[in-house]
């Protein structure tokens, strides 16, 4: 439940009351976007140049990390998978890559356990998600750019 924007209302309680769920009604599906744009905008104070710089940095760094991850998974180097996934988690979580982070955490976990059971499959999912992030951010930064043409 997301509360209403904060204000200084003296007269009413700030705490919203949770609506009662209807019996038997399915919970409405909430679409989770690949990137929390509020987070990125907050960090860069709404400055388009700063945002672009940060996004470019993220694309460059993550592209390299995914290549390292792919190689480490193929070579069954668990510690390398853990190390790279850990580093990638930090940046991605900081920038609000909501759906990407759990996949990286799973890779980090498998790397730490020393058993890369489903790491190849998780890596493929992560690579797909990164592509979606690239398209999403390209569309945000340059709405005129066709999503598939950006950062491909």
């Amino acid at each position, binding site marked *: 439940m997301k509360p209403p924007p904060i*204000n200084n209302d003296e007269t009413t309680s700030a705490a*919203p009351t949770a609506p009662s769920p209807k019996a038997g009604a399915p919970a409405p599906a909430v679409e989770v976007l690949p990137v929390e744009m509020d987070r990125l905008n907050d960090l860069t104070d*709404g400055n388009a140049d700063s945002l672009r710089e940060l996004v470019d940095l993220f694309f460059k760094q993550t592209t390299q990390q995914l290549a390292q991850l792919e190689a480490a998974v193929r070579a069954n180097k668990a510690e390398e998978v853990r190390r790279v996934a850990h580093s990638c988690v930090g940046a991605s979580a900081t920038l609000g890559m909501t759906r990407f982070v759990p996949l990286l955490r799973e890779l980090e976990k498998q790397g730490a356990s020393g058993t890369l059971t489903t790491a190849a499959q998780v890596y493929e999912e992560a690579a797909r998600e990164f592509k979606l992030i690239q398209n999403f951010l390209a569309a945000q930064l340059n709405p005129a750019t066709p999503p598939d043409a950006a950062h491909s």
Partner: protein
Amino acid sequence: MKKILIIEDDQIVSNVYRNKLTVEGYQAEVALDGETGLKMMRTFQPDVIVLDLMLPKMSGVEVIKQIRSEADFSKLPIIVFSNTYLTNLIQDAWKAGATKCVSKINCPPKELLELVRRTVVGGVVSPALPKTEGVPVTKPAPVVSEADAEFQAELRKTLIASLPATLVALRAGLQSFIKSDTEVAQLKHIHELYRRVHAVNGNASIAGLVPIAHLAAALEALLKELYENPKNINSSTLRTVAATVDFLGFLFEHGTRPDKQEIPPASILVVDDEAVSRRAIIYALEKAQLQSVSVEDPNAAFKLLTENNFDLVFLDVDMPGMTGYELCTKLRNLPLHKKTPVVFITILSDFDSRTSSMMAGGNDFIVKPFLFIELTVKALIHVLRGKLQPAK
């Protein structure tokens, strides 16, 4: 006589502004919330509106939108008071049609008078004159007189006298927040604490108590974030809120001297092997105008530490070649950095390793993904503590 409408929920702040404007020959009225402000605008027909962004009932941004939607007031100058740490809100205010956005901290009453004077003379109310900022004014320039200094000193004295009671109220509010056992109760208590901190920010700003105003403004922004995104309430953010309230108590005791009323320049070192996080930390520090040096290699960082003084160090934990803990242990052996505050930045799964951070000589830690304002608040605390700590 030019008419000024002040829309501001803090009665002390609004009264100070009204009195100053009245003494200067303006007709000034106060509305304590946005809805009342809009009603008064239609009858009072002000030449300028001075508007606080954080208002009861209706936010300041909504008030601006409403004003701009009414033909009679679509060009009415609106001077907006904002919290310098709420940058997204300031952007929204500009987009909604604010004429001027100023930080409360940087705008004590005499600055407001000057701003109003320039707006009245150069603004839309006098179409014959250009609107450009900084045009010569036809009225006499404001006299920064002994009276101004006395007025500010009197304000400061009154506020300082009330600080012990303010601290008691803040601590009580913090306890209620921490002990809340439901999300609804938690949100209610965050909001109450937020309101108290908002008042501290406003009052300290008009009294020129800069460090208190800055820290209160940053804490206000953090509490607003936690209220609007409760998923960010975790052990890290709770610790930060508690530490900030505690440090406000320190500032109430040590940060009110007239010669301490500025944010001192500080030298900060950021060590993280990964570029995006380094950049994020630098941006977060810049929110408080704190400059930093960043390096990716812990060995290069150690060399820098050997040769330079720093007021604060942020260390990533998991770095190739040397962990943050190892670097911290090494820097504690340097005479320059026996007491330099060190804050570890660690991902959530490392959070339980607080013992390691303390054993290595760290002072604090913050969890990735951190809230940017949380990092800003922590940096302000450590920098101000170092600069204001009484010499032993």
